[in-house]
């Protein structure tokens, strides 16, 4: 099962991209970090097939994807729970499976959550751009989203797959009835009315269908600003909750712009962003302000 191979894309799904841990160290040039939105799920998929955490996986969106390896590969699907089929026969989700050469590996539609991760032993071996294989949808760096008929190179398998009966998962799984987002007060909290953080905590917000890899958009009560006017552009981080003039908060995800001019009312800690990546449109969002 060693040696490089190819995955042929039979069904790209709504949006399937190649993702790894992203591009680090170039934000000052305007290069977003990018990388898998549900990083724990990406890491788990890699671990199940014996890859290092930085190997590239496929990140699907709601509707899964289907690929055909040209030779036998070990694969694993994690993240949003979904049916997994090999040549039409059910295969386990969240476990390493052997896919014969020429067989169709189907990642089905998500039963919960948004994004599933498909890892193959050896990793998706597209040419790295600026140190990463990630597709960055904001700036167009990295490989294009999957299209029907595309052929993705697979690297040589890293060695024997660590067969395990069960792997303790660090991934919390998709949020079911509400998305709880802890919020550290942000650098521009003073640009909002003194009651804004409380209003944010009490308000009922829902995940907007406009959400994408750049940000989780929410719909709910607008936050009242106390300082009008424009904030000079400043550096942004993943998890930053930006409030545009409309007042509805946006939580920045991996493909966020590196600088921005809307005030940041708070920052969602990194550990909570995987859940944000799995929040389906319409889901209730609750912001829980923390102490700085």
């Amino acid at each position, binding site marked *: 099962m060693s040696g490089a191979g190819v995955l042929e894309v039979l069904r790209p799904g709504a949006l399937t991209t190649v993702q790894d841990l992203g591009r*680090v*160290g*170039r*934000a*000052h*040039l*305007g*290069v977003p970090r990018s990388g898998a939105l549900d990083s724990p799920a990406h890491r788990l998929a890699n671990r199940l097939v014996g890859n290092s955490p930085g190997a590239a996986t496929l990140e699907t969106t709601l509707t899964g994807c289907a690929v055909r390896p040209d030779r036998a590969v070990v694969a694993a699907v994690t993240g949003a729970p979904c049916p997994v089929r090999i040549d039409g026969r059910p295969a386990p989700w969240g476990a390493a499976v052997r896919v014969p050469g020429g067989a169709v590996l189907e990642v089905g539609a998500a039963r919960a959550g948004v994004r599933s991760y498909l890892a193959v032993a050896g990793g998706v071996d597209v040419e790295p*751009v*600026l140190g990463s294989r990630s597709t960055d949808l904001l*700036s*167009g*760096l990295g490989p294009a989203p999957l299209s029907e008929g595309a052929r993705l190179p697979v690297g040589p398998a890293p060695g024997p797959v660590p067969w395990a009966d069960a792997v303790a998962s660090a991934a919390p799984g998709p949020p079911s009835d509400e998305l709880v987002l802890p919020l*550290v007060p*942000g*650098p521009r909290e003073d640009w909002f009315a003194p009651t804004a953080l409380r209003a944010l905590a009490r308000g009922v917000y829902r995940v907007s269908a406009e959400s994408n890899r750049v940000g989780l958009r929410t719909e709910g009560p607008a936050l009242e600003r106390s300082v009008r006017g424009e904030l*000079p*552009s*400043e*550096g*942004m*981080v993943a*998890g*930053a909750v930006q409030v545009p003039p409309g007042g509805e908060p946006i939580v920045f995800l991996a493909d966020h*712009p*590196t*600088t*921005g001019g809307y005030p*940041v009312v708070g*920052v*969602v*800690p*990194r550990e909570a962003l995987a859940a944000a990546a799995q929040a389906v449109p319409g889901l209730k969002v609750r912001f829980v302000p923390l102490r*700085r």
Partner: protein
Amino acid sequence: MRVTRVLPMGRRALLLEVGGTERAQALHAELVRLRETGELPPVEEIVPAAATVLLDGLEDPGSLTEWLRDREFPDTAPAGAAAVVLPVRYDGPDLAGVAALWGVDEEEAVAIHTRTEFRVAFCGFAPGFGYLTGLPEELGVPRRTVPRTSVPPGSVGLAGAYTGVYPRTSPGGWQLIGRTDAVLWDVSREPAALLAPGARVRFEAVP
């Protein structure tokens, strides 16, 4: 100079306020130097902007706060390498409008732009898109009320007192005064950005 305010940005980042673009450029240059000499703890990103510098990916931002607050930083950035010279055909669709806003004719508008020494204050909007300072504030121009849906690569634009050059085709609301053939962004080049923060830039009129 001192850092005026050290603002936590989540649990892994600090936003440093210095109250001006030149000071932010100077602080950025010094922080990059301190990282190279090992005096700054490991940090993933050092991101300059209009009046701040962001340190992101810090293990323990809290322990750094006092050190940053107490330290004396240089007031100005070092001169650095020779200026990047960008040849520009000043035939942009908004040149006449910009000249009118400046109260000069087109020829004088070009002269003003070509005799200005620019510096890349920071990047954003797109990889390799630099915000160049150098024009005096009173020559600031508004963005177009309706942004263009497609601006060709190499377009030289103005917004506020900033000058920028579009690295690739994208929508854009800046006032376009000309176009350069220089390649602003090339991922196969190191560094990929022709105009990185701190770089000095001059524009040269070509027919």
